[in-house]
C-alpha cells in the first residue's frame, strides 16, 4: 500500500476527485485504486522520468526569460462523459454566437442598432479593427480556433471565465501531456477508456483547407510565427510539424497584387491560408503598427480581396474583449434564440457609473481585471490584495472605467496535485479548444487543465508559474470507437497462419568448440 494520498486534505472548494476524506467520486475510483498502490518514492521516480522526457523533447516555455520544462502534474484530471457533453455543447454554442457577433459588428451591426450591446463599448475596444470591416472571410469563418476558459464553482457547475478568439495557445501541451503520460504512467490508462486528443492537428489542417479562398483546388497552408524568441514558439513548430506545413516568419512571405507567396528554392510559391500566431498589431504594417517587421505588408488587403485566408481573422479581439464578456449570454439569445448552456461568472459593468461606485466600495471582495489583458497580467484578486494595492487600483479604475471589469470571486475547484513532495489540493481551470470549419464546430475531447501551483493561489496562467494536468474525457460505456477524420481502408483479413520465422545466421556451435579447444591448450 502506498502513502501517496494519505495526508490529502480537502480545501474549501469543490474537489474534482474527492467528496470527503478518502472518498473518491465515482469516475475517479479506478484512478484512486492505482494511486493507492504507489509509494511516495515510486511517484517521485515517475516525476523524474517525466522531467527527463520533457527536457529531452525540448517541450519548454519561457518564464521571465528562462527556459523551463512544462510543468505537468502526474495526477490526471478526469471528466466523465455526461459532464463533457454539457461542456461540449456549451462551448459550441458560445463559439457559434461569437462568430455571429463578429460577422455582425464588422458588417450590418444589427445587435448595435437593436441596442442589445452599447455601440460605444464596441467602438472603444482597442481590439476593434476598422480595417476588418467589410471583409467577408471564406465560409464565414473568423474564429477558426477558439479556446474557452472554464472554471468550476463551489456547487460544481462549470462557468465561462473568458473567451480567447485571437491566438489561443496550449493545444500542443494537451497533446504532449498525453504522450508523456502514456510513457511515464502506462498502467493508469489500463482501467480507463480515455478519448483521443491526438487528432487535433489533422482536424485543424482539414478545417484550414476547407476555409481557403473559394476555387482553390489544393490549398497551401502555412503557420506564421513571430520567430524563435516568442514564448509559444514550441507550439508553432509543433503544429507546423504535425500538420506537415511550412512554418514561416514574416520575412518569408511577400504580397504582390494581393497574392501572398512564400520565398522557396523553387521561386515564389502561392499561399492560400495563413494560420497566423501573430497579434493583429504586428500582422500588417500597412494597416497596423508601421514599425512591425514580423508581419507581411499587404496581407490584409489580400484577405479583403478574397485571395488569402487569415486564420484567425483580423479584429477577433473585439469578441473576447473583457468589457463585452458580460454581454455574451445576450449574444447567444440574440443570434441563436437559445439560453446559454454554460453560465458566465457574475460580472459587473464598470462603465455604468452607479455600478462602478458600488464596486469601488467593495474592491476587497471582488476580482478586477483589465479588459485588454491576457495571461493573468494586471489581474487583482481583492481578498488577496492589501490596502495600498486596492487604493491604487481604485484610482486607476476611476480614471478609465471602460478599461476594467469586476467579478465575484469564484472558488475555483481543486484537485490533488503533487507539489513539494506532498499531495495537496490546488485550484485549476479548463481550456477546451474548438475548431470551426464553417460547417460544424469540433471540440477536442479534453483540453488544457491549468493548475495554480502555489497553495491557495487562484492564478493558473503558465506565464504566472502555473502547471498543467493531462485532461481525460472518459467515453461513455455505450460509445464505440471514435470516428477518425479520414476513415481507414476496409481491413483485409487477419493472417491466420504465422508468417515465416525470420532468417537466422550461422549457428554458433562452432564457437563453443573453439572455446573448449582454447581451455585445453
Amino acid at each position, binding site marked *: 500500500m502506498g502513502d501517496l494520498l494519505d495526508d490529502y486534505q480537502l480545501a474549501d472548494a469543490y474537489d474534482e476527485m474527492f467528496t470527503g476524506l478518502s472518498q473518491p467520486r465515482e469516475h475517479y475510483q479506478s484512478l484512486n485504486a492505482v494511486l493507492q498502490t504507489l509509494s511516495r518514492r515510486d511517484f517521485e521516480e515517475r516525476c523524474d*522520468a517525466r522531467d527527463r522526457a520533457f527536457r529531452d523533447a525540448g517541450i519548454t516555455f519561457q518564464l521571465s526569460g528562462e527556459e523551463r520544462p512544462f510543468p505537468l502534474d502526474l495526477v490526471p484530471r478526469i471528466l466523465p462523459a455526461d459532464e463533457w457533453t454539457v461542456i461540449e455543447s456549451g462551448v459550441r454554442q458560445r463559439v457559434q454566437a461569437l462568430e455571429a457577433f463578429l460577422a455582425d459588428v464588422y458588417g450590418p451591426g444589427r445587435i448595435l442598432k437593436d441596442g442589445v450591446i452599447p455601440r460605444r463599448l464596441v467602438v472603444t475596444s482597442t481590439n476593434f479593427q476598422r480595417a476588418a470591416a467589410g471583409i467577408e472571410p471564406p465560409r464565414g469563418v473568423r474564429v477558426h480556433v477558439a479556446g474557452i476558459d472554464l472554471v468550476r464553482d463551489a456547487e460544481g457547475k462549470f462557468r465561462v471565465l473568458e473567451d480567447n478568439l485571437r491566438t489561443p495557445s496550449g493545444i500542443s501541451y494537451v497533446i504532449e501531456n*498525453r504522450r508523456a503520460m*502514456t*510513457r*511515464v*504512467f*502506462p498502467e493508469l*490508462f*489500463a482501467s*480507463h*477508456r*480515455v478519448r*483521443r486528443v*491526438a487528432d487535433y492537428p*489533422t482536424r485543424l*489542417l*482539414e478545417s484550414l*483547407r476547407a476555409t481557403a479562398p473559394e476555387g482553390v483546388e489544393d490549398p*497551401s*497552408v502555412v503557420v506564421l510565427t513571430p520567430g524563435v524568441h516568442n514564448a509559444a514558439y514550441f507550439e508553432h513548430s509543433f503544429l507546423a*510539424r*504535425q*500538420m*506537415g*506545413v511550412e512554418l514561416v516568419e514574416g520575412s518569408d512571405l511577400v504580397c504582390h497584387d494581393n497574392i501572398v507567396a512564400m520565398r522557396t528554392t523553387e521561386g515564389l510559391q502561392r499561399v492560400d491560408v495563413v494560420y497566423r500566431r501573430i497579434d493583429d498589431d504586428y500582422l500588417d504594417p500597412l494597416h497596423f503598427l508601421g514599425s512591425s517587421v514580423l508581419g507581411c505588408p499587404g496581407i490584409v488587403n489580400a484577405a479583403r480581396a478574397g485571395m488569402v485566408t487569415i486564420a484567425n481573422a483580423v479584429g477577433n479581439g473585439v469578441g473576447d474583449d473583457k468589457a463585452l464578456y458580460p454581454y455574451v449570454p445576450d449574444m447567444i439569445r440574440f443570434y441563436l434564440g437559445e439560453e446559454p448552456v454554460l453560465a458566465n461568472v457574475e460580472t459587473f459593468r464598470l462603465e455604468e457609473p452607479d455600478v462602478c461606485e458600488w464596486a469601488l466600495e467593495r474592491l476587497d471582495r471582488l476580482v478586477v481585471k483589465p479588459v485588454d489583458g491576457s495571461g493573468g497580467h494586471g489581474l487583482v484578486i481583492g481578498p488577496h490584495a492589501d490596502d495600498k494595492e486596492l487604493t491604487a487600483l481604485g484610482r486607476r479604475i476611476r480614471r478609465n472605467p471602460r478599461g476594467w471589469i469586476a467579478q465575484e470571486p469564484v472558488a475555483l475547484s481543486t484537485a490533488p496535485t503533487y507539489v513539494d513532495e506532498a499531495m495537496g489540493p490546488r485550484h485549476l481551470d479548463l481550456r477546451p479548444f474548438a475548431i470551426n470549419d464553417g460547417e460544424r464546430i469540433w471540440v477536442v475531447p479534453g483540453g488544457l487543465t491549468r493548475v495554480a501551483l502555489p497553495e491557495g493561489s487562484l492564478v493558473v496562467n503558465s506565464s504566472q508559474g502555473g502547471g498543467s494536468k493531462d485532461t481525460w474525457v472518459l*467515453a461513455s460505456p455505450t460509445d*464505440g*470507437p*471514435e*470516428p*477518425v*477524420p*479520414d*476513415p*481507414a*481502408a476496409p*481491413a*483485409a*483479413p*487477419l*493472417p*491466420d*497462419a*504465422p*508468417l*515465416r*520465422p*525470420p*532468417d*537466422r*545466421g*550461422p*549457428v*554458433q*556451435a*562452432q*564457437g563453443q*568448440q573453439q572455446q573448449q579447444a582454447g581451455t585445453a591448450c
Partner: protein
Amino acid sequence: MLSRIAESLYWIGRYTERAEDTARLLDVHYHHLLEDRWADEATACAGLLRAMGDDPDELIAATDADGVTEFLSFDTKNPASITSSLTAAWENARGAREAISSEMWETLNTTHHTLPSQARLVAGRTPHDFFRWVKERAAMLAGLADSTLSRDEGWSFLVLGRNLERVDMTARLLSARYAETWGPTVWTTTLRCCSAYEAYLRTYRHGVDASSALEFLLLDRLFPRSVLHALTTAQRSLGELDPRAGRTGVDDDARRILGRCHAELSFLRVSDAAADLPELLEHLQDATAQVHRAVSDRYFLDTHAIAWSA
C-alpha cells in the same frame, strides 16, 4: 574478403536492423494499445506474434501487451527477440573484430553488456525507455559504420544485410496492421513505427489515409525506410559486389530476384498494391528469403564448420 567475415558483416546488418525494427514495432503498438482502449488487446497481440513468425496458440503467456513485449524483447529462448538479435549481432562482430572499426565493435560490445541492466530497469515499468535505447544504439552503430568503414566489400555486405532485413520487417509490420482490431488510427500508428509519420505529413500535406500511407511505406522513392528505397539500396550493394556488367542479362541470382522485385514495385499502382496486399507482402518476404539464399550460396559458401560425427 574472407567469406566468413563477409557473412558476419551481413548478419551484423541484419540483426541490428531486426532489433531496431522490433523495438519500433513494440514501442508504437504498446502505447497504441494503452491509448486506444477500443483495440482488442488479445487479437492485436496475436496478430503481432503471427507477423513475427510465431504461433500465438503455442505461447500462452504472451496474450496481453505486457506478455508480448516480454516475449519479443527479452525472451532469450525466442531467437527473434530484441535481446537475441542484439546478442547475435555481437557474436558476429566478435568473430570479425579485425574487419570492423573498433568504434563499431565497442558500440556493439557495450550494447551487449548493458542489455541485462536495461532489461532489469524495465521490469515493472514502462518499456518505452528500453525501446528508445535500442533504437539509439542501432542508430549509433549505423552512424559509426557510415563514418568509419571503408566503402569496400565489407561495407556492401553490411548495407545489403540491413536493407534486406528492412524489406522483410516492413512487410511484417504491414501484415501486423492489416487487422481490423488495431482500431481506426491504424495507419498513423503504422507510419509512426517507421518514423514516417512526420515525413508523410510533409509529403502529402493532408491527413493519413490508407492509400497514401501504403503508398508512402511501400513505394516512396525518397524516404529511407520505404520498401522501395530499401530494395534500391540493397540492389546497389549487390551491384557493387559484382561490378561486371555483361551485355545481356544478369548471371547473379540474387540480383535477378531483387531486380525483378524492384521493377515490380517501381511500376506498381498503389490501388493494385492495396487490392492484393496479403499476396504482395508474402511475395516480398519470399523474395527476400530467396535473395538471402542466393547471396549465401554465392558468397558465404562453406563457411559453416563441418560437424564430424564421432
